[in-house]
């Protein structure tokens, strides 16, 4: 008895210790999950309102059935016990009863299916969109191209902006932890937005729960979905199809703004993209390339090769690596073509590739002093054709 009591006390102590993290105060994420949220995200579209309604409809019916069925079972457990003297009856079949409890659930299920049908049909109707945006899933970020409607021509990559220090528990986590990006998708309120999804490598999935939207992004294929946001605000989602090691680190952020703000954003974004468009004939100094390269490295390479260049596990260290310190041709090839688990980075611009290659050759203990210009990559790509 004493042993059992002591074991119980130790267990309670352990439980208290383990439960202590629950006292940390986190606040709700704006446009994302609330702390200890119990239900779906608040609806921003009619479709999501329908989904909310359907869910409550199902929950209520299931709860009623649950209470009735387990009420009967509980009654039986209490009243039909041998210990209180109840003797067993001998009935063991009844065709009437079987028919009744087949027909009634069938009718209930049909009743559930009717409202759901309406919503399914509505969710699939992507016609007459005001703006069409293509979402491309990459390992591990999203690319967006505005291909029709106001904003046509805008395209950018959208990468997780949560610093690795937060993920590695070296810094406090913000309340938009893991659901914040550098470039958000911006759309006008009350306009039908058609989202075309595809992917570059493996299957990803694009979703914003507040909109009631989720669509797989399948490499080599094009799928679509749509939403019409009725509230201004920022809304968030996370990649929803296992796509490799950074699956948890490629969120979706959509900012819904007024028509006027949208037009302002469109012109500002177009100017920004024009300025950023790298002219591959420009030449840069070592310092300029290292600076730019540091940013490219942080956004793309550090997840596998680590910020300190030391790699780990299957991912080689770049600090002191023979490809990085060897002939330039070797590193052009590995960046443009990939190797084994390393994807190819041909989608980066020549300037970005030149910058990151310069960065790796002049960082940590690598001190080659070499400068790679964007034109080197133009040539390398041409040589590969």
């Amino acid at each position: 008895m004493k042993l059992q009591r002591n074991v119980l006390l130790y267990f309670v102590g352990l439980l208290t210790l383990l439960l202590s993290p629950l006292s940390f105060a986190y606040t709700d994420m704006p446009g994302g999950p609330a702390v200890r949220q119990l239900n779906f995200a608040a609806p921003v579209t009619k479709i999501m309102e329908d989904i909310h309604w359907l869910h409550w409809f199902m929950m209520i019916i299931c709860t009623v059935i649950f209470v009735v069925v387990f009420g009967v079972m509980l009654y039986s457990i209490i009243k039909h016990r041998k210990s209180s003297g109840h003797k067993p009856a001998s009935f063991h079949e009844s065709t009437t009863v079987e028919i009744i409890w087949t027909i009634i659930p069938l009718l209930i299920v049909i009743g559930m299916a009717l409202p759901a049908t309406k919503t399914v049909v509505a969710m699939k109707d992507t016609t007459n969109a005001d703006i069409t945006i293509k979402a491309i899933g990459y390992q591990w970020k999203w690319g967006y191209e505005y291909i029709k409607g106001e904003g046509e021509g805008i395209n950018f990559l959208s990468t997780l902006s949560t610093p690795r220090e937060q993920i590695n528990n070296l810094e406090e986590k913000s309340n938009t932890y893991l659901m914040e990006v550098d470039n958000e998708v911006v759309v006008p309120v009350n306009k039908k937005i058609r989202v075309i999804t595809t992917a570059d490598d493996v299957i990803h999935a694009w979703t914003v729960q507040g909109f009631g939207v989720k669509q797989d992004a399948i490499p080599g294929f094009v799928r679509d979905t749509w939403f019409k946001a009725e509230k201004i605000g920022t809304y968030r989602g996370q990649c929803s199809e296992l796509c490799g090691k950074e699956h948890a680190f490629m969120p979706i952020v959509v900012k819904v703004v007024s028509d006027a703000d949208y037009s302002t954003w469109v012109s500002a974004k177009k100017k920004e993209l024009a300025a950023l468009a790298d002219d591959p004939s420009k030449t840069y100094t070592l310092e300029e390339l290292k600076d730019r390269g540091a940013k490219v490295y942080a956004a793309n390479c550090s997840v596998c090769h680590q910020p300190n260049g030391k790699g780990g596990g299957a991912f080689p260290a770049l600090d002191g690596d023979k490809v990085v310190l060897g002939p330039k041709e070797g590193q052009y090839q590995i960046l443009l073509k990939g190797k084994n688990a390393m994807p190819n980075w041909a989608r980066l611009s020549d300037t970005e590739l030149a910058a990151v290659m310069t960065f790796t050759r002049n960082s940590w203990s690598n001190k080659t002093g070499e400068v790679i210009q964007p034109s080197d990559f133009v040539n390398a790509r041409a040589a590969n054709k």
Partner: protein
Amino acid sequence: MTTITTAHDTHQGHDDHAHAMPHGWRRWLFATNHKDIGTMYLIFALVNLFAGGTMALLIRLELFQPGLQFLRPEFFNQLTTMHGLIMVFGAIMPAFVGFANLMIPLQIGASDMAFARMNNFSFWIMPVAGLLLFGSFLAPGGATAAGWTLYAPLSVQMGPGMDMTIFAIHLMGASSIMGSINIIVTILNMRAPGLSLMKMPMFCWTWLITAYLLIAVMPVLAGAITMVLTDRHFGTSFFAAAGGGDPVMYQHIFWFFGHPEVYIMILPAFGIVSEVIPTFARKKLFGYSSMVYATSSIAILSFIVWAHHMFSTGMPVTGQLFFMYATMLIAVPTGVKVFNWIATMWKGSLTFETPMLWAIGFIFVFTLGGFTGLICAMAPIDIGIQDTYYVVAHFHYVLVAGSLFAMFAGFYYWVPKWTGYMANETRGKIHFWSSMIFFNLTFFPMHFLGLAGMPRRYADYPVQFADFNAVASIGALGFGLSQLYFLLAVVLPTYRGGKKAEAQSWEGAEGLEWTIPSPAPFHTFETPPTIK
């Protein structure tokens, strides 16, 4: 093992020395006795339960708090993948085969399975496959991290661990197919005279139907993973658009296997519960023929619902609607079964020994899982919860609180027959209540996480999900410790001794297995009994 002593007694009066009972390692390596083979399957399954369970605990350890504390994300995904594969193919399926081997011949009055040597081969493939599967962790790049569903093209990207997994699954599939052939032939051909199909115990019925499902779908899985193998190494493009293929085709082929697979994992559980409840209600199973028809309907329907796992892949409206309707339809025969069990209890004379606790617990928690399944079946709702923790909650409710709890019911129910000793009632109750409490603590919060949008297969999550994740991790620890308690305080002691069991170990038990001594002698029903 206690069966040795009794078997020696029967052996004395045995003239035919061809039936001499083997001893030592040869007894097990060359086993053709259904009781020995069944026991080996159960031991194999238990080992895998703990291996898969350890992986689950590592997963929940990492997920205890937001941020990456212990595991790199690529290893985390190896764990989620292998946890699923080991539990499905290494724990649940072999355990049910173990129950089939142990009980079907006894329940139909047969001396053994129809193909005793093939039975041996079916079992011994499994440890080899298990070693391949588990050994894939040591391959360069580690085990496959593509999820237990192994979707292409991600699975095509994986390292050699994926190939080891493919071969392991091929082996296990072959084992299942051979086992199923054995079960079907045994049930159809070796029933005692007078034991018509409609008099057969429900456990045998559910296994008969499950065996047909296995034969139908295991080859389909083999096809899917072979195509992944050739895409990986032999230049095919089944699932690569650049070569004219389609990643979604993998999903269709996989889930055509996958959906019947989950019914394969639950039908024998239904069978066990249908044995336990009548015994402890002291009343025949209500609606026996309806139960047979309901089980058959579930099996047939299971072939036409597979794309409800694919509602977000972009199928046309007609597809979404058809699969939604067909899936919702399965709720009807499943409901019929639940009602029949409760009708069996109704006006019975109930006692609540451990097997009955597990069976009632099963009905309660499995039905909850059934409700969340119905909710997932609604395509619009599924768009919101596909690939979130809501799905994880749903399938753990039906697989753990369903299949595993039913297996515990079967263990406590039949262990007197296997060992000759009753399991300790108090300890059985401790095992039951702690499992129930910690199971719900672990998986109930996951419904909230899923509704709030937390995706599955995530090594890290937004901080707002922290509290429910912490509760789930604590529950998981408790649940794991409860199973360790089961092994150390129930299973091992019961094999060593305890209260002696009668031939009819439970007052209300009916069936041929209760007409032979406890423990069952090595050879039973060498002369078939006649059933009136």
